[in-house]
């Protein structure tokens, strides 16, 4: 399992944001959260709630699994 040392899930938020040339404040405003919240998620210091994860998924138009990686694998074997 490749979850980081503090047990948080890894994510590709920074990459997805950079692809759209959005600042953290821009993404935060679109999500309805603060710039600090985006930073905390990007740096792996905070795992977002499910509603926020779904919001991210809809905003970037990608499945949640393409944003977050718990290190277990993507074929549904986490059940």
């Amino acid at each position, binding site marked *: 399992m490749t979850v980081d040392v503090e047990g948080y899930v890894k994510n590709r938020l920074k990459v997805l944001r950079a692809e759209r040339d*959005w*600042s953290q*404040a*821009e*993404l*935060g*405003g*679109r*999500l*309805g*959260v*603060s*710039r*600090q*919240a985006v*930073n*905390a*998620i990007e*740096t792996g*210091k*905070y795992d*977002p*709630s499910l509603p*926020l994860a779904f919001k991210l998924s809809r905003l970037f138009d990608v499945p949640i699994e393409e944003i977050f990686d718990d290190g277990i694998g993507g074929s549904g074997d986490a059940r």
Partner: protein
Amino acid sequence: MTVSGARAMRDSVPRGEGERRDSARRRKRWLIVAALAVVGVIPGFYMGYQDGAAMAQSRPSIWSPTFAAAMAAVYLLAVIGGGILLSRVTDEVERQRSYKAVSFAGTALMLVYPTWFLLWRGGFVPEPVHWMLFVLFWLSLAAASLYYRFRQG
């Protein structure tokens, strides 16, 4: 580059909808905090002035029941109303941080007050002072809030 120069440069960059919303949210939050600070500072100074004047004249500072009830109402209104307003502009990261900080401050109070009380009953220390316990709670809350804010970035 000066702070105002950096701000001018930042402001000259066209901002997206998200950044505008983020600014509006932050502005709203600061307005609420500033309003709460004003509500706290004005009665605080007035009460301090009254108590100070009484102390200077070597007389006890006695509040009228009306004044005490009004102050209690202002306090309750500010804490409850301010809490509701702030919760509307608080995101889940800030909320989690607040929960942790309140939990820390509550634990500090739970440890300190009974210990102090028991030691007082045993004659080891002076009687617990209510305002010191209140200040302890707020200081623990502020310290924990800062710690979690710094740690979470």
